[in-house]
């Protein structure tokens, strides 16, 4: 660090300040954060305790749980590391800014010719003209390349001082400030925002959201209805688009309507609804066909749950009782199915399984009538991710500042150059030297370019003289 004062001379507060103003601490913290972050990528986060006990055993489960490893990015020690890094960034920046501020906002930049004379690397050449004639030409050439320039007389001639990019010394503070903004934005989001999900069957309206990582529900100030859900597929069978038509209702009146797809959410009163999943629901209505064994006739009938159907030819009555996602047939899962009850005219009722996927399934029962689901309208529910994050604009501001700041810090520099002209009889001797706070190799090129340009005026001057 900048100061080498003896630590015992400082008050405890100052000592703490000095400790946080250390770049060594930055390096240690960055590497510690990098190393510890690995843990959370090796151990799946936020699983159920049962799954962890199964995977690691009782002992390790307890130890890991104690250390907060199962939700490590919000554990006290990981947050403390981030807090320490933030304190480190802030203290370092303030500590340095005290010095750089004066340099950056100096009204009259200091020009110390002795400093440039000490540089080992200089471009030198001789000119045929005397310094007072060059004094009319050189300043404008320097001015064209550097934003600020100043001419000063020396004992044996003059010196032109030029500089540019003084403000770029602020770049690193912009980057550090952006990191702090990201953390503030994250904090705002975690305090004032929420993250939840809701499933809405087509045609239905909800106003309660299930929060994530939180057993509580959230009541919205408005209702949301799913008018329609559609999924389309590519020829390969991969999903192409999930689309939900949503309507926002206030006091029962529609106030806003939007179709959402993945990557294009609906936003209302700061709350955003994202297409995140979908699923099948039992059809409300199915088309059944009844095939009479005796006559071979087929009768079509619409059916809904608990609606009694009288089968022609006096074959009895039938009613759908319930829908199941995974019907069982001799220990095999045969998928989604309706279970119905067939009551023959003279006999006891029988359960009939009608799988959606296998319409001929009921033939195996070998009854007087074969029942099959001929057709049905698939019904979906849409799964929405619901979130509110008032901190997101702070974070985005941080993002933009970070990119700008990094660019300034890495690729722009504070460049200073000095052209010293001394009389050498009737002629002049010229020395060009320069420095930059970054990219010294690039500055060396710039200095030699400037020197060439200045030397070129020599040949054109000769040309003029001849003419």
């Amino acid at each position: 660090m900048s100061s080498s004062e003896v630590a015992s001379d400082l008050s405890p507060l100052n000592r703490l300040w000095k400790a946080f103003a250390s770049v060594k601490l930055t390096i240690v913290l960055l590497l510690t954060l990098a190393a510890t972050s690995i843990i959370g990528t090796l151990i799946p986060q936020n699983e159920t305790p049962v799954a962890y006990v199964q995977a690691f055993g009782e002992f390790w489960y307890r130890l890991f749980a104690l250390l907060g490893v199962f939700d490590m990015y919000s554990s006290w020690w990981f947050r403390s590391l981030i807090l320490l890094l933030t304190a480190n960034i802030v203290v370092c920046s303030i500590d340095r800014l005290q010095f750089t501020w004066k340099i950056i906002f100096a009204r009259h930049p200091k020009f110390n010719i002795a400093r440039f004379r000490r540089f080992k690397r200089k471009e030198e050449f001789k000119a045929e003209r005397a310094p007072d004639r060059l004094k009319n030409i050189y300043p404008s050439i320097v001015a064209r390349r550097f934003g600020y320039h100043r001419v000063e007389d020396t004992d044996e001639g003059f010196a032109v001082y030029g500089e540019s990019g003084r403000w770029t010394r602020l770049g690193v503070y912009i980057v550090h400030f952006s990191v702090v903004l990201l953390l503030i934005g994250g904090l705002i989001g975690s305090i004032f925002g929420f993250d939840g999900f809701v499933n809405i069957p087509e045609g239905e309206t909800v106003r309660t959201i299930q929060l994530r990582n939180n057993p509580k529900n959230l009541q919205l100030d408005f209702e949301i209805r799913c008018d329609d859900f559609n999924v389309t597929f590519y020829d390969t069978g991969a999903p192409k688009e999930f689309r939900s038509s949503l309507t926002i209702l206030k006091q029962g009146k529609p106030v806003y309507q939007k179709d959402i797809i993945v990557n294009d959410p609906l936003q209302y009163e700061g709350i955003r609804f994202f297409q995140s999943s979908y699923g099948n629901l039992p059809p409300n209505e199915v088309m059944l066909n009844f095939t009479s064994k005796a006559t071979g006739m087929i009768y079509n009938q619409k059916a809904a749950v608990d609606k009694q159907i009288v089968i022609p030819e006096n074959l009895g009555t039938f009613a759908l009782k319930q829908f199941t996602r995974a019907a069982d047939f001799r220990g095999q899962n045969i998928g989604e199915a309706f279970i119905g009850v067939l009551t023959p005219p003279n006999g006891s009722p029988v359960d009939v399984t009608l799988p959606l996927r296998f319409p001929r399934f009921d033939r195996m029962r070998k009854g007087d009538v074969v029942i099959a689901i001929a057709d049905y309208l698939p019904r979906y529910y849409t799964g929405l991710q619901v979130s509110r994050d008032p901190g997101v604009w702070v974070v985005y501001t941080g993002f933009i500042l970070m990119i700008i700041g990094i660019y300034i810090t890495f690729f722009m520099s504070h460049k200073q150059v000095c052209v010293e002209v001394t009389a050498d009889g009737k002629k002049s001797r010229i020395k060009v030297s320069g420095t930059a706070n970054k990219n010294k190799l690039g500055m060396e090129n710039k200095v030699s370019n400037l020197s060439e340009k200045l030397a070129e005026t020599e040949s054109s001057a000769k040309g003029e003289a001849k003419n």
Partner: protein
Amino acid sequence: MSSSNILSIITFVYGLAGVLYIFAWIFKKPGCGKLATWVAMIGVIGNTAGILLRWVESYRLGIGHAPFSNLYESLVFFAWTIALIYLFIERRFGNRIIGAFTTPIACLAMAYASLKPGITSDIQPLLPALKSNWLIAHVITCFIGYAAFAIAFGISAMYLMKQAQDDEKVIWLDFVRPITLFVFITLFSRILLVGNWALSAMTALPICLVFYAGVFIVRRMPANIKNSLLEMFPEPRVLDELGYQMVLFGFLFLSVGIITGAVWANSAWGRYWGWDPKETWSLITWFVYATVLHARMMRDWRGQRLAYLSMVGFAAVLFTYFGVNLLPGLHSYGALGQ
């Protein structure tokens, strides 16, 4: 000719360029080096054509999208960026030896994309979550960053060869280095090549032995041969500076890549950061290179220490890129078999 055919040929073109650069370096044939530059340029042109053709083909298939959507396409873009950045450096610094250390990386990336079973070169339709311009920006910026880090890695390796003697004599380094090398090669052969740990260790062992045999032979070489191999290398000071410049360039693009990824995540799932393994590993990479930058800018670390740290950074890049697919998580779009 389809784009995947062109890109398979380009693999060999980059390989040829690499061989020519190495030939030009070892046998001191400047003509060979010039030829290598031309071959590398043909490689970049062919690579560009392959990428553009692939884009056109996707529209012919009716599933038009920019060719930056799966592992194969990202590797092809990675190779393209490496070759292009290298040619730029060659033009700027006029040194062809760096080509012997960077064009082979481009060739390996392409060969891995074409040959590894499970990486399909088919053009696939985009899943709904991937339909976003932020995704294109995310992939392009990330891979420009990764390519810059790959070149920084090559340059760090050159630096360590040029400075064969240690800057500072540290005894434990002699033990730590071979063990670290072995662990890393085992890890990466597990990630990139084979399906189990025992086999990976068995692959790593001969690689390490060959490496150390090479080191041993070079150490025993007469000084004049050794010097003649190294004299054409750029000055250590230049290598150090160039490697650092590459890290700066890579860090800017990695940052933009992480940021565009976060904006994409926010538009797709309503959260800009979720600590999923891929996100976390990209942040780990960012931390490591941030360390490199602070160590260099503020503590004036240079030379060997910084070269090693920069190589650790590249290991983190590789793990972010490939290794994460071994871990549990949701970020499977760039995974094998996709």
